[in-house]
């Protein structure tokens, strides 16, 4: 069910576990699905110069990011026989321990679902104009770097 126009992937704040559960439940009606692959990014309380990360504040060049996500989505649907694919990325503040990225792919068989999910996560990290500002204890901060 690939859509032909950009879809909003951004959610203000953290992605709730119950939202993920509900999203999974909605796929019970599609009995052509045999496997789902899900990736979740969670904010780590890394220590930076002796101070723990308490949250990440995400900003994005939203319009460009949605257009780029649309291209990624089209490319992945063209490459893998998926039944569906859902992507959500947080904007604003996400506290340590909370979910900031939710990528969910489904297919008749496990391999396309798994490969598409992994490729989508890699492309999101590399290609979406999104920035994370790691908020440290005591008002300090540092701009996140993806490795």
């Amino acid at each position, binding site marked *: 069910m690939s859509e032909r126009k950009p879809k909003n992937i951004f959610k203000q704040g953290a992605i709730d576990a119950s939202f993920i559960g509900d999203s999974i439940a909605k796929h019970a009606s599609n009995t052509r699905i045999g496997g789902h692959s899900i990736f979740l990014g969670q904010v780590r309380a890394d220590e930076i110069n002796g101070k723990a990360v308490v949250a990440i504040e995400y900003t994005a060049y939203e319009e460009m990011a949605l257009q780029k996500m649309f291209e990624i989505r089209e490319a992945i649907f063209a490459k893998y026989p998926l039944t569906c694919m859902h992507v959500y990325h947080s904007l604003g503040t996400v506290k340590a321990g909370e979910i900031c990225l939710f990528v969910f792919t489904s297919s008749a068989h496990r391999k396309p679902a798994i490969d598409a999910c992994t490729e989508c996560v890699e492309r*999101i990290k590399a290609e979406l104009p999104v920035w994370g500002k790691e908020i440290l204890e005591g008002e300090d901060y540092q701009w996140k770097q993806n490795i």
Partner: protein
Amino acid sequence: MEILVFGQLTDVLQTSRLSWPEVADTDTLRQQLLEAYPALAQHSFLVAVNQQMISSNTTLVPGAEVALLPPFSGG
């Protein structure tokens, strides 16, 4: 022209939206910005024009949407 500024570059330029005189192309823009903000030299960034990342010098027509993008760190 208006320049959109993102990520750590908002710290350097102290704004997320910079008003700037019209300029012929992206190389000239980059050079002018580095002169005005020497601290920019310590930051790697790409320029997007009309939401397309550009990799070589590009002519800027009036009304183009120009953005300065430091390395992405989503996810």
